[in-house]
Protein backbone atom coordinates (compact mmCIF):
# COMPACT_ATOMS: atom_id res chain seq x y z
CA UNK A 1 0.00 0.00 0.00
CA UNK A 2 3.06 2.24 0.25
CA UNK A 3 2.66 2.89 -3.46
CA UNK A 4 -0.70 4.56 -2.95
CA UNK A 5 0.55 6.73 -0.07
CA UNK A 6 3.45 7.98 -2.18
CA UNK A 7 1.09 9.15 -4.89
CA UNK A 8 0.16 12.74 -3.89
CA UNK A 9 3.75 13.98 -3.57
CA UNK A 10 4.80 12.50 -6.88
CA UNK A 11 1.63 13.73 -8.54
CA UNK A 12 2.37 17.30 -7.43
CA UNK A 13 5.84 17.10 -8.97
CA UNK A 14 4.35 15.72 -12.17
CA UNK A 15 1.83 18.53 -12.41
CA UNK A 16 4.48 21.22 -11.87
CA UNK A 17 6.70 19.75 -14.58
CA UNK A 18 3.76 19.34 -16.97
CA UNK A 19 2.94 23.04 -16.60
CA UNK A 20 6.51 23.90 -17.54
CA UNK A 21 6.35 21.46 -20.44
CA UNK A 22 3.40 23.25 -22.03
CA UNK A 23 5.32 26.57 -22.03
CA UNK A 24 7.72 25.56 -24.83
CA UNK A 25 10.93 27.32 -25.83
CA UNK A 26 13.08 24.32 -24.97
CA UNK A 27 16.63 23.76 -26.16
CA UNK A 28 16.42 21.01 -28.70
CA UNK A 29 18.79 18.98 -30.80
CA UNK A 30 18.52 19.01 -34.59
CA UNK A 31 15.76 16.38 -34.43
CA UNK A 32 13.57 18.42 -32.12
CA UNK A 33 14.34 16.24 -29.09
CA UNK A 34 14.39 18.41 -25.97
CA UNK A 35 16.35 16.79 -23.11
CA UNK A 36 14.85 19.19 -20.58
CA UNK A 37 11.33 18.28 -21.73
CA UNK A 38 12.17 14.61 -21.30
CA UNK A 39 13.38 15.41 -17.76
CA UNK A 40 10.22 17.39 -17.06
CA UNK A 41 7.92 14.53 -18.01
CA UNK A 42 10.04 12.00 -16.08
CA UNK A 43 8.00 12.33 -12.86
CA UNK A 44 4.79 11.78 -14.80
CA UNK A 45 6.20 8.77 -16.61
CA UNK A 46 7.62 7.37 -13.36
CA UNK A 47 4.17 7.71 -11.86
CA UNK A 48 2.62 5.77 -14.72
CA UNK A 49 5.47 3.25 -14.66
CA UNK A 50 5.35 2.51 -10.92
CA UNK A 51 1.75 3.06 -9.92
CA UNK A 52 -0.55 3.13 -12.91
CA UNK A 53 0.80 0.28 -15.01
CA UNK A 54 3.15 -1.21 -12.34
CA UNK A 55 5.64 -2.09 -15.07
CA UNK A 56 8.19 -4.82 -14.59
CA UNK A 57 11.01 -4.96 -17.11
CA UNK A 58 13.24 -7.97 -17.79
CA UNK A 59 16.43 -8.14 -19.79
CA UNK A 60 17.08 -4.39 -20.05
CA UNK A 61 20.75 -5.37 -20.04
CA UNK A 62 20.29 -6.72 -23.54
CA UNK A 63 20.18 -3.10 -24.69
CA UNK A 64 23.87 -2.22 -25.16
CA UNK A 65 25.14 0.71 -23.09
CA UNK A 66 26.51 2.51 -26.16
CA UNK A 67 26.30 2.54 -29.93
CA UNK A 68 23.36 2.36 -32.34
CA UNK A 69 20.75 -0.29 -31.65
CA UNK A 70 17.28 -0.99 -32.99
CA UNK A 71 14.52 -2.02 -30.60
CA UNK A 72 11.64 -3.78 -32.36
CA UNK A 73 8.47 -4.11 -30.31
CA UNK A 74 4.80 -4.92 -30.62
CA UNK A 75 2.61 -1.84 -30.80
CA UNK A 76 -0.80 -0.84 -29.59
CA UNK A 77 -2.87 2.24 -29.14
CA UNK A 78 -3.01 5.53 -30.94
CA UNK A 79 -0.67 7.34 -28.56
CA UNK A 80 2.86 5.95 -28.11
CA UNK A 81 2.53 5.07 -24.41
CA UNK A 82 4.42 1.84 -25.10
CA UNK A 83 7.37 3.84 -26.47
CA UNK A 84 7.37 6.03 -23.35
CA UNK A 85 7.41 3.01 -21.01
CA UNK A 86 10.20 1.26 -22.95
CA UNK A 87 12.11 4.55 -22.79
CA UNK A 88 11.56 4.73 -19.03
CA UNK A 89 12.80 1.17 -18.55
CA UNK A 90 15.96 1.97 -20.52
CA UNK A 91 16.51 5.27 -18.73
CA UNK A 92 16.36 3.55 -15.34
CA UNK A 93 19.03 1.09 -16.43
CA UNK A 94 21.34 3.25 -18.55
CA UNK A 95 20.58 6.82 -17.47
CA UNK A 96 19.08 9.76 -19.37
CA UNK A 97 21.99 9.90 -21.82
CA UNK A 98 20.65 6.72 -23.43
CA UNK A 99 17.25 8.23 -24.19
CA UNK A 100 15.78 6.26 -27.10
CA UNK A 101 14.38 7.86 -30.24
CA UNK A 102 11.34 6.30 -31.85
CA UNK A 103 9.83 6.19 -35.30
CA UNK A 104 6.26 7.43 -35.37
CA UNK A 105 3.52 6.92 -37.91
CA UNK A 106 3.14 9.85 -40.27
CA UNK A 107 -0.29 11.05 -39.27
CA UNK A 108 0.64 11.47 -35.58
CA UNK A 109 2.39 14.66 -36.60
CA UNK A 110 -0.88 16.19 -37.72
CA UNK A 111 -2.25 16.09 -34.19
CA UNK A 112 -2.01 19.33 -32.23
CA UNK A 113 -0.09 19.12 -28.90
CA UNK A 114 0.51 15.38 -29.20
CA UNK A 115 2.79 15.94 -32.20
CA UNK A 116 4.82 18.52 -30.28
CA UNK A 117 5.15 16.33 -27.18
CA UNK A 118 6.08 13.27 -29.27
CA UNK A 119 8.83 15.16 -31.07
CA UNK A 120 10.24 16.74 -27.94
CA UNK A 121 10.32 13.27 -26.38
CA UNK A 122 12.39 11.86 -29.24
CA UNK A 123 9.81 10.80 -31.82
CA UNK A 124 10.54 11.34 -35.53
CA UNK A 125 8.34 10.70 -38.58
CA UNK A 126 9.14 7.23 -39.84
CA UNK A 127 11.60 7.45 -42.74
CA UNK A 128 14.38 5.05 -43.72
CA UNK A 129 16.84 7.85 -44.39
CA UNK A 130 16.29 9.55 -41.04
CA UNK A 131 16.30 6.29 -39.10
CA UNK A 132 19.63 5.37 -40.67
CA UNK A 133 21.02 8.75 -39.69
CA UNK A 134 19.84 8.29 -36.09
CA UNK A 135 21.45 4.84 -35.86
CA UNK A 136 24.71 6.15 -37.32
CA UNK A 137 24.67 8.90 -34.72
CA UNK A 138 24.68 6.07 -32.18
CA UNK A 139 21.14 6.34 -30.82
CA UNK A 140 18.79 3.69 -29.47
CA UNK A 141 16.00 3.67 -32.07
CA UNK A 142 12.61 2.08 -31.38
CA UNK A 143 10.50 0.76 -34.20
CA UNK A 144 7.09 -0.85 -34.20
CA UNK A 145 7.19 -2.99 -37.32
CA UNK A 146 3.48 -3.77 -37.21
CA UNK A 147 2.95 -0.14 -38.15
CA UNK A 148 -0.54 1.20 -38.47
CA UNK A 149 -2.07 -2.28 -38.54
CA UNK A 150 -0.77 -2.84 -35.01
CA UNK A 151 -2.48 0.19 -33.56
CA UNK A 152 -5.89 -0.69 -34.93
CA UNK A 153 -6.22 -4.20 -33.50
CA UNK A 154 -9.54 -5.34 -32.04
CA UNK A 155 -9.71 -6.57 -28.42
CA UNK A 156 -9.92 -10.18 -29.54
CA UNK A 157 -6.73 -9.84 -31.63
CA UNK A 158 -4.55 -8.36 -28.89
CA UNK A 159 -1.02 -9.74 -28.64
CA UNK A 160 -1.48 -11.37 -32.00
CA UNK A 161 1.31 -9.77 -34.04
CA UNK A 162 0.40 -8.39 -37.43
CA UNK A 163 2.59 -8.94 -40.46
CA UNK A 164 5.84 -6.95 -40.26
CA UNK A 165 5.32 -4.94 -43.43
CA UNK A 166 8.16 -5.21 -45.95
CA UNK A 167 10.86 -5.75 -43.35
CA UNK A 168 12.12 -2.19 -43.62
CA UNK A 169 13.50 -2.33 -40.07
CA UNK A 170 15.72 -5.30 -41.00
CA UNK A 171 17.10 -3.40 -44.00
CA UNK A 172 17.80 -0.53 -41.65
CA UNK A 173 19.69 -2.65 -39.12
CA UNK A 174 21.71 -4.31 -41.89
CA UNK A 175 22.66 -1.01 -43.51
CA UNK A 176 23.57 0.62 -40.21
CA UNK A 177 25.33 -2.52 -38.93
CA UNK A 178 23.51 -2.45 -35.60
CA UNK A 179 21.94 -5.22 -33.49
CA UNK A 180 18.18 -5.66 -33.04
CA UNK A 181 16.66 -6.19 -29.60
CA UNK A 182 13.25 -7.89 -30.03
CA UNK A 183 11.00 -6.57 -27.30
CA UNK A 184 7.64 -7.87 -26.07
CA UNK A 185 5.31 -5.49 -24.25
CA UNK A 186 2.41 -7.10 -22.40
CA UNK A 187 -0.22 -4.79 -20.93
CA UNK A 188 -0.08 -2.06 -23.55
CA UNK A 189 -2.67 -3.79 -25.70
CA UNK A 190 -5.29 -3.54 -22.95
CA UNK A 191 -5.10 0.18 -22.27
CA UNK A 192 -7.56 1.15 -25.01
CA UNK A 193 -9.79 -1.89 -25.54
CA UNK A 194 -11.25 -1.33 -28.98
CA UNK A 195 -14.76 -2.67 -29.33
CA UNK A 196 -15.28 -1.46 -32.88
CA UNK A 197 -14.00 0.96 -35.44
CA UNK A 198 -15.89 4.12 -36.24
CA UNK A 199 -16.91 4.47 -39.91
CA UNK A 200 -13.82 5.28 -41.92
CA UNK A 201 -15.42 8.42 -43.35
CA UNK A 202 -15.48 9.82 -39.82
CA UNK A 203 -11.81 8.92 -39.29
CA UNK A 204 -10.87 10.62 -42.55
CA UNK A 205 -12.62 13.74 -41.33
CA UNK A 206 -10.13 14.13 -38.48
CA UNK A 207 -7.18 12.88 -40.52
CA UNK A 208 -6.63 9.61 -38.62
CA UNK A 209 -6.33 6.22 -40.33
CA UNK A 210 -9.04 4.84 -38.02
CA UNK A 211 -11.07 5.93 -35.00
CA UNK A 212 -11.41 3.43 -32.17
CA UNK A 213 -14.58 2.94 -30.18
CA UNK A 214 -13.67 1.88 -26.64
CA UNK A 215 -15.76 1.62 -23.45
CA UNK A 216 -14.71 5.21 -22.64
CA UNK A 217 -14.22 6.79 -26.07
CA UNK A 218 -16.04 8.67 -27.53
CA UNK A 219 -18.50 8.30 -24.61
CA UNK A 220 -16.36 10.32 -22.15
CA UNK A 221 -14.93 12.67 -24.74
CA UNK A 222 -11.30 13.66 -24.04
CA UNK A 223 -11.29 11.58 -20.83
CA UNK A 224 -11.59 8.56 -23.09
CA UNK A 225 -7.95 9.17 -23.96
CA UNK A 226 -6.95 8.18 -20.40
CA UNK A 227 -5.44 4.70 -20.72
CA UNK A 228 -6.74 1.85 -18.53
CA UNK A 229 -4.45 0.71 -15.66
CA UNK A 230 -3.43 -2.71 -16.90
CA UNK A 231 -0.35 -4.38 -15.41
CA UNK A 232 2.60 -4.26 -17.80
CA UNK A 233 5.54 -6.51 -18.34
CA UNK A 234 8.28 -5.58 -20.81
CA UNK A 235 10.74 -8.26 -21.88
CA UNK A 236 13.86 -7.38 -23.84
CA UNK A 237 15.12 -10.49 -25.66
CA UNK A 238 18.85 -11.03 -26.31
CA UNK A 239 20.17 -8.78 -29.08
CA UNK A 240 20.26 -10.28 -32.58
CA UNK A 241 23.53 -9.41 -34.28
CA UNK A 242 23.03 -8.94 -38.02
CA UNK A 243 26.55 -7.71 -38.75
CA UNK A 244 27.82 -11.06 -40.12
CA UNK A 245 25.41 -10.60 -43.07
CA UNK A 246 27.08 -7.32 -44.06
CA UNK A 247 25.36 -4.14 -45.28
CA UNK A 248 24.93 -5.47 -48.85
CA UNK A 249 22.47 -8.03 -47.48
CA UNK A 250 19.95 -5.19 -47.13
CA UNK A 251 19.21 -5.66 -50.85
CA UNK A 252 18.59 -9.39 -50.49
CA UNK A 253 14.78 -9.46 -50.30
CA UNK A 254 14.46 -13.11 -49.35
CA UNK A 255 16.94 -12.78 -46.50
CA UNK A 256 15.31 -9.56 -45.25
CA UNK A 257 11.86 -11.16 -45.15
CA UNK A 258 13.26 -14.26 -43.49
CA UNK A 259 15.03 -12.26 -40.76
CA UNK A 260 11.93 -10.15 -40.30
CA UNK A 261 9.85 -13.27 -39.75
CA UNK A 262 12.36 -14.60 -37.23
CA UNK A 263 12.20 -11.40 -35.17
CA UNK A 264 8.41 -11.52 -35.36
CA UNK A 265 8.40 -15.09 -34.03
CA UNK A 266 10.75 -14.17 -31.19
CA UNK A 267 8.44 -11.40 -30.06
CA UNK A 268 5.30 -13.51 -30.51
CA UNK A 269 6.74 -16.38 -28.45
CA UNK A 270 7.80 -14.01 -25.68
CA UNK A 271 4.35 -12.41 -25.65
CA UNK A 272 2.70 -15.81 -25.24
CA UNK A 273 5.14 -16.88 -22.53
CA UNK A 274 4.41 -13.72 -20.54
CA UNK A 275 0.66 -14.02 -21.07
CA UNK A 276 0.66 -17.57 -19.70
CA UNK A 277 2.49 -16.42 -16.55
CA UNK A 278 0.34 -13.47 -15.66
CA UNK A 279 -2.67 -13.75 -13.40
CA UNK A 280 -4.91 -11.18 -15.05
CA UNK A 281 -4.65 -8.12 -17.24
CA UNK A 282 -5.38 -5.59 -14.48
CA UNK A 283 -4.09 -7.39 -11.36
Amino acid at each position, binding site marked *: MSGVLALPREAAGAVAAARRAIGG*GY*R*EDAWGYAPQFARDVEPLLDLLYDHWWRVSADGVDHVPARGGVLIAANHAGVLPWDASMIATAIRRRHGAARHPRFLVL*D*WAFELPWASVAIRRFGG*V*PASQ*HDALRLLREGHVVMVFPEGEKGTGKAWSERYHLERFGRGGFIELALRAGVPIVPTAVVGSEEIYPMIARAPSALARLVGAPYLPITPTFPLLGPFGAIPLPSRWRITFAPAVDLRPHGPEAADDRALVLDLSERIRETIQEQLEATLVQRRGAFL
Partner: protein
Amino acid sequence: MPGRRILITGVSNFWGSRLAARLAEDPGVDRVIGLDTRPPGRLLRARITFIEADLRTPELGAHLRAAAVDTLVHNDISQFPEPGRAARDLHDINVVGTLRLLAAAAALPGLRTVVVRSAAAIYGSEPSAPSFITEDQARRFPLRTRFQRDVGELERLVEGFARRAPAVTCTVLRLQPVVGPTLDTPITRMLRVPVVPTVLGFDPRIQLLDEDDSIAALRCAVVHPVDGPVNVAASEPISLSRALKRTRRRSVPIAHPIYGQVAGALVRAGGLPPLSEDILRYLRYGRTVDTTRMSEELGFTPLRTTLAALERAAGIAPGVPG
Protein backbone atom coordinates in the same frame (compact mmCIF):
# COMPACT_ATOMS: atom_id res chain seq x y z
CA MET B 1 42.92 31.37 -70.43
CA PRO B 2 40.22 34.00 -70.83
CA GLY B 3 38.08 34.80 -67.80
CA ARG B 4 34.49 33.77 -67.42
CA ARG B 5 31.53 35.61 -68.88
CA ILE B 6 28.52 35.37 -66.60
CA LEU B 7 24.93 36.43 -67.23
CA ILE B 8 22.69 36.99 -64.22
CA THR B 9 18.92 37.26 -64.68
CA GLY B 10 16.99 39.39 -62.23
CA VAL B 11 20.20 41.34 -61.61
CA SER B 12 18.37 44.17 -59.85
CA ASN B 13 16.83 42.06 -57.12
CA PHE B 14 18.43 41.34 -53.76
CA TRP B 15 20.43 38.30 -54.82
CA GLY B 16 21.19 39.50 -58.33
CA SER B 17 22.75 42.81 -57.33
CA ARG B 18 24.86 41.39 -54.51
CA LEU B 19 26.04 38.41 -56.51
CA ALA B 20 26.90 40.62 -59.51
CA ALA B 21 28.93 42.95 -57.30
CA ARG B 22 30.82 40.00 -55.80
CA LEU B 23 31.51 38.36 -59.15
CA ALA B 24 32.59 41.67 -60.76
CA GLU B 25 35.43 41.83 -58.21
CA ASP B 26 36.57 38.29 -58.99
CA PRO B 27 39.81 38.31 -61.06
CA GLY B 28 38.71 35.06 -62.75
CA VAL B 29 35.64 36.76 -64.15
CA ASP B 30 35.98 38.63 -67.42
CA ARG B 31 32.54 40.18 -67.54
CA VAL B 32 29.26 40.18 -65.66
CA ILE B 33 26.16 40.84 -67.75
CA GLY B 34 22.95 41.65 -65.90
CA LEU B 35 19.46 41.26 -67.27
CA ASP B 36 16.36 42.75 -65.68
CA THR B 37 13.33 44.87 -66.39
CA ARG B 38 14.30 47.20 -63.57
CA PRO B 39 17.64 49.06 -63.70
CA PRO B 40 20.22 48.16 -61.02
CA GLY B 41 21.75 50.72 -58.68
CA ARG B 42 24.06 53.30 -60.24
CA LEU B 43 27.19 51.93 -58.58
CA LEU B 44 26.57 48.41 -59.80
CA ARG B 45 25.59 49.61 -63.24
CA ALA B 46 29.05 51.08 -63.74
CA ARG B 47 30.68 47.71 -63.07
CA ILE B 48 28.53 45.38 -65.15
CA THR B 49 26.96 45.31 -68.59
CA PHE B 50 23.25 45.86 -68.08
CA ILE B 51 20.60 44.72 -70.54
CA GLU B 52 17.15 46.11 -69.85
CA ALA B 53 14.90 43.34 -71.07
CA ASP B 54 12.17 40.99 -69.98
CA LEU B 55 12.94 37.27 -70.00
CA ARG B 56 9.86 36.78 -72.12
CA THR B 57 10.82 39.13 -74.98
CA PRO B 58 11.47 37.62 -78.42
CA GLU B 59 14.86 39.42 -78.51
CA LEU B 60 16.17 37.40 -75.56
CA GLY B 61 17.97 34.95 -77.86
CA ALA B 62 19.78 37.76 -79.67
CA HIS B 63 20.83 39.36 -76.34
CA LEU B 64 22.22 36.05 -75.10
CA ARG B 65 24.10 35.29 -78.31
CA ALA B 66 25.64 38.78 -78.31
CA ALA B 67 26.73 38.35 -74.71
CA ALA B 68 28.44 35.03 -75.56
CA VAL B 69 28.35 33.82 -71.96
CA ASP B 70 29.70 30.57 -70.55
CA THR B 71 27.72 30.82 -67.32
CA LEU B 72 24.06 31.58 -66.71
CA VAL B 73 22.73 32.39 -63.25
CA HIS B 74 18.95 32.21 -63.30
CA ASN B 75 17.91 34.35 -60.39
CA ASP B 76 14.72 35.96 -61.70
CA ILE B 77 12.43 33.75 -59.60
CA SER B 78 10.07 35.47 -57.20
CA GLN B 79 8.14 33.99 -54.32
CA PHE B 80 6.48 37.24 -53.28
CA PRO B 81 5.03 40.17 -55.22
CA GLU B 82 7.38 43.15 -55.50
CA PRO B 83 6.96 46.66 -56.90
CA GLY B 84 6.34 46.16 -60.61
CA ARG B 85 5.63 42.46 -60.12
CA ALA B 86 2.05 41.80 -59.19
CA ALA B 87 1.03 38.48 -57.64
CA ARG B 88 -0.89 37.48 -60.76
CA ASP B 89 2.24 37.90 -62.95
CA LEU B 90 4.55 35.79 -60.78
CA HIS B 91 3.64 32.46 -62.35
CA ASP B 92 4.31 33.87 -65.80
CA ILE B 93 7.64 35.40 -64.76
CA ASN B 94 8.76 32.25 -62.92
CA VAL B 95 7.70 29.56 -65.35
CA VAL B 96 7.41 31.17 -68.78
CA GLY B 97 10.53 33.23 -68.02
CA THR B 98 12.50 30.05 -67.28
CA LEU B 99 11.09 28.36 -70.36
CA ARG B 100 12.16 31.22 -72.65
CA LEU B 101 15.54 31.58 -71.00
CA LEU B 102 16.38 27.89 -71.36
CA ALA B 103 15.16 27.84 -74.97
CA ALA B 104 17.55 30.71 -75.73
CA ALA B 105 20.34 29.09 -73.71
CA ALA B 106 20.10 25.90 -75.76
CA ALA B 107 21.43 27.87 -78.75
CA LEU B 108 24.58 29.07 -76.92
CA PRO B 109 27.58 27.03 -78.03
CA GLY B 110 29.91 28.21 -75.28
CA LEU B 111 27.55 27.59 -72.35
CA ARG B 112 29.06 25.35 -69.63
CA THR B 113 27.31 26.25 -66.40
CA VAL B 114 23.74 27.02 -65.33
CA VAL B 115 22.96 27.94 -61.73
CA VAL B 116 19.32 28.29 -60.70
CA ARG B 117 18.21 29.99 -57.49
CA SER B 118 15.35 27.69 -56.61
CA ALA B 119 13.66 27.21 -53.25
CA ALA B 120 13.29 24.53 -50.61
CA ALA B 121 9.65 25.61 -50.67
CA ILE B 122 9.30 22.93 -53.36
CA TYR B 123 9.04 20.39 -50.51
CA GLY B 124 6.18 22.34 -48.93
CA SER B 125 5.50 21.95 -45.23
CA GLU B 126 4.15 18.51 -44.43
CA PRO B 127 3.43 16.96 -41.03
CA SER B 128 4.79 13.62 -42.17
CA ALA B 129 7.86 14.92 -43.99
CA PRO B 130 11.19 13.42 -42.88
CA SER B 131 13.15 15.37 -40.27
CA PHE B 132 15.87 15.88 -42.88
CA ILE B 133 14.42 16.04 -46.39
CA THR B 134 16.85 14.87 -49.06
CA GLU B 135 16.95 16.26 -52.61
CA ASP B 136 15.22 13.18 -54.08
CA GLN B 137 12.02 13.84 -52.08
CA ALA B 138 10.85 16.84 -54.11
CA ARG B 139 7.78 15.13 -55.48
CA ARG B 140 6.94 12.79 -52.61
CA PHE B 141 4.10 15.06 -51.53
CA PRO B 142 1.59 16.87 -53.73
CA LEU B 143 2.63 20.40 -54.72
CA ARG B 144 -0.03 22.30 -52.80
CA THR B 145 0.68 26.02 -53.10
CA ARG B 146 1.03 28.29 -56.10
CA PHE B 147 4.72 28.93 -55.51
CA GLN B 148 5.39 25.22 -54.90
CA ARG B 149 3.83 24.42 -58.28
CA ASP B 150 5.84 27.20 -59.95
CA VAL B 151 9.09 25.85 -58.52
CA GLY B 152 8.13 22.29 -59.41
CA GLU B 153 7.40 23.30 -62.97
CA LEU B 154 10.50 25.40 -63.51
CA GLU B 155 12.73 22.71 -61.98
CA ARG B 156 11.28 20.23 -64.46
CA LEU B 157 12.22 22.61 -67.25
CA VAL B 158 15.78 22.78 -65.92
CA GLU B 159 15.90 18.98 -65.62
CA GLY B 160 14.80 18.64 -69.24
CA PHE B 161 17.40 21.18 -70.35
CA ALA B 162 20.15 19.38 -68.43
CA ARG B 163 19.20 16.10 -70.13
CA ARG B 164 19.38 17.62 -73.60
CA ALA B 165 22.61 19.55 -72.91
CA PRO B 166 24.99 17.06 -71.28
CA ALA B 167 27.96 19.45 -71.71
CA VAL B 168 26.30 21.98 -69.40
CA THR B 169 26.47 21.52 -65.62
CA CYS B 170 23.12 22.59 -64.15
CA THR B 171 23.07 23.33 -60.43
CA VAL B 172 19.71 23.95 -58.80
CA LEU B 173 20.09 25.52 -55.37
CA ARG B 174 17.08 24.94 -53.15
CA LEU B 175 17.34 27.71 -50.60
CA GLN B 176 15.57 27.57 -47.26
CA PRO B 177 13.84 30.89 -46.39
CA VAL B 178 16.49 33.59 -46.51
CA VAL B 179 16.55 36.12 -43.67
CA GLY B 180 18.78 39.03 -42.85
CA PRO B 181 18.92 42.65 -41.78
CA THR B 182 18.75 44.10 -45.31
CA LEU B 183 16.45 41.63 -47.07
CA ASP B 184 12.82 42.69 -47.12
CA THR B 185 10.31 39.90 -47.69
CA PRO B 186 7.09 38.96 -45.87
CA ILE B 187 9.21 36.42 -43.96
CA THR B 188 11.75 38.96 -42.69
CA ARG B 189 8.95 41.42 -41.91
CA MET B 190 7.29 38.68 -39.90
CA LEU B 191 10.45 38.51 -37.75
CA ARG B 192 10.11 42.16 -36.86
CA VAL B 193 6.44 42.28 -35.83
CA PRO B 194 6.06 42.56 -32.05
CA VAL B 195 3.53 39.75 -31.64
CA VAL B 196 3.67 36.69 -33.87
CA PRO B 197 0.50 34.64 -34.35
CA THR B 198 1.31 30.93 -34.00
CA VAL B 199 -0.90 27.92 -34.63
CA LEU B 200 -2.36 26.58 -31.38
CA GLY B 201 -0.97 23.16 -30.50
CA PHE B 202 1.84 23.25 -33.05
CA ASP B 203 5.52 24.07 -32.65
CA PRO B 204 7.18 23.50 -36.02
CA ARG B 205 10.89 22.92 -36.56
CA ILE B 206 12.25 25.68 -38.73
CA GLN B 207 15.48 26.12 -40.62
CA LEU B 208 16.60 29.31 -42.36
CA LEU B 209 19.53 30.74 -44.29
CA ASP B 210 21.37 33.97 -43.58
CA GLU B 211 21.28 36.48 -46.45
CA ASP B 212 25.09 36.66 -46.72
CA ASP B 213 25.26 32.88 -46.79
CA SER B 214 22.67 32.78 -49.59
CA ILE B 215 24.89 35.03 -51.76
CA ALA B 216 27.97 33.00 -50.85
CA ALA B 217 26.16 29.78 -51.83
CA LEU B 218 25.26 31.19 -55.24
CA ARG B 219 28.85 32.29 -55.79
CA CYS B 220 30.09 28.89 -54.68
CA ALA B 221 27.84 27.21 -57.26
CA VAL B 222 29.15 29.51 -60.02
CA VAL B 223 32.74 28.67 -59.11
CA HIS B 224 32.19 25.00 -58.38
CA PRO B 225 28.99 23.78 -60.07
CA VAL B 226 27.58 20.30 -59.48
CA ASP B 227 24.79 18.50 -61.35
CA GLY B 228 21.27 18.56 -60.01
CA PRO B 229 19.46 19.95 -56.98
CA VAL B 230 21.28 20.90 -53.78
CA ASN B 231 19.57 21.92 -50.53
CA VAL B 232 21.07 25.08 -49.04
CA ALA B 233 20.29 25.79 -45.40
CA ALA B 234 21.86 26.86 -42.13
CA SER B 235 22.75 24.19 -39.61
CA GLU B 236 20.91 23.54 -36.34
CA PRO B 237 17.18 23.76 -37.04
CA ILE B 238 15.20 25.04 -34.06
CA SER B 239 11.57 25.05 -32.99
CA LEU B 240 9.46 28.12 -33.59
CA SER B 241 8.77 28.52 -29.86
CA ARG B 242 12.49 28.63 -29.16
CA ALA B 243 13.11 31.00 -32.06
CA LEU B 244 10.52 33.39 -30.67
CA LYS B 245 11.93 33.10 -27.18
CA ARG B 246 15.48 33.83 -28.36
CA THR B 247 14.42 36.81 -30.47
CA ARG B 248 12.25 38.05 -27.59
CA ARG B 249 9.07 38.01 -29.63
CA ARG B 250 5.73 37.44 -28.01
CA SER B 251 3.39 34.98 -29.60
CA VAL B 252 -0.33 34.53 -29.54
CA PRO B 253 -1.58 31.03 -30.36
CA ILE B 254 -4.60 30.88 -32.63
CA ALA B 255 -6.61 27.72 -33.30
CA HIS B 256 -6.02 26.40 -36.79
CA PRO B 257 -9.63 26.57 -38.08
CA ILE B 258 -9.78 30.35 -37.53
CA TYR B 259 -6.07 31.06 -38.11
CA GLY B 260 -6.56 32.13 -41.72
CA GLN B 261 -9.31 34.63 -40.85
CA VAL B 262 -7.47 36.10 -37.85
CA ALA B 263 -4.19 36.41 -39.74
CA GLY B 264 -6.05 37.91 -42.71
CA ALA B 265 -7.67 40.52 -40.44
CA LEU B 266 -4.27 41.37 -38.96
CA VAL B 267 -2.80 41.73 -42.44
CA ARG B 268 -5.60 44.12 -43.44
CA ALA B 269 -5.14 46.06 -40.20
CA GLY B 270 -1.49 46.50 -41.15
CA GLY B 271 -0.14 44.54 -38.21
CA LEU B 272 1.22 41.72 -40.34
CA PRO B 273 2.84 41.33 -43.75
CA PRO B 274 0.75 39.46 -46.33
CA LEU B 275 0.98 35.76 -45.55
CA SER B 276 1.07 33.39 -48.47
CA GLU B 277 -0.19 29.85 -48.21
CA ASP B 278 3.47 28.71 -48.04
CA ILE B 279 4.06 30.80 -44.92
CA LEU B 280 0.83 29.63 -43.28
CA ARG B 281 1.74 25.97 -43.76
CA TYR B 282 5.34 26.68 -42.69
CA LEU B 283 4.11 28.19 -39.42
CA ARG B 284 2.09 25.04 -38.74
CA TYR B 285 4.38 22.23 -39.87
CA GLY B 286 7.79 23.81 -40.57
CA ARG B 287 10.40 22.26 -42.84
CA THR B 288 13.96 21.03 -42.35
CA VAL B 289 16.24 19.67 -45.05
CA ASP B 290 19.27 17.44 -45.29
CA THR B 291 22.41 19.39 -46.24
CA THR B 292 24.85 16.53 -46.85
CA ARG B 293 25.03 17.30 -50.58
CA MET B 294 25.67 20.97 -49.88
CA SER B 295 28.63 20.34 -47.61
CA GLU B 296 30.14 17.32 -49.35
CA GLU B 297 29.55 17.93 -53.07
CA LEU B 298 29.04 21.65 -53.43
CA GLY B 299 31.68 22.20 -50.75
CA PHE B 300 29.71 24.96 -49.08
CA THR B 301 29.26 25.62 -45.35
CA PRO B 302 27.09 28.54 -44.19
CA LEU B 303 28.74 30.81 -41.63
CA ARG B 304 25.62 31.36 -39.55
CA THR B 305 23.40 28.84 -37.80
CA THR B 306 19.63 29.16 -37.99
CA LEU B 307 19.55 30.92 -34.63
CA ALA B 308 22.42 33.30 -35.54
CA ALA B 309 20.68 34.19 -38.81
CA LEU B 310 17.43 34.82 -36.95
CA GLU B 311 19.00 37.01 -34.30
CA ARG B 312 20.81 39.03 -36.91
CA ALA B 313 17.64 39.48 -38.96
CA ALA B 314 15.63 40.47 -35.91
CA GLY B 315 18.30 43.02 -34.99
CA ILE B 316 19.36 41.28 -31.80
CA ALA B 317 22.96 40.88 -30.73
CA PRO B 318 23.78 37.23 -30.20
CA GLY B 319 23.13 36.58 -26.52
CA VAL B 320 24.42 34.01 -24.11
CA PRO B 321 23.41 30.50 -25.02
CA GLY B 322 20.39 29.34 -23.06
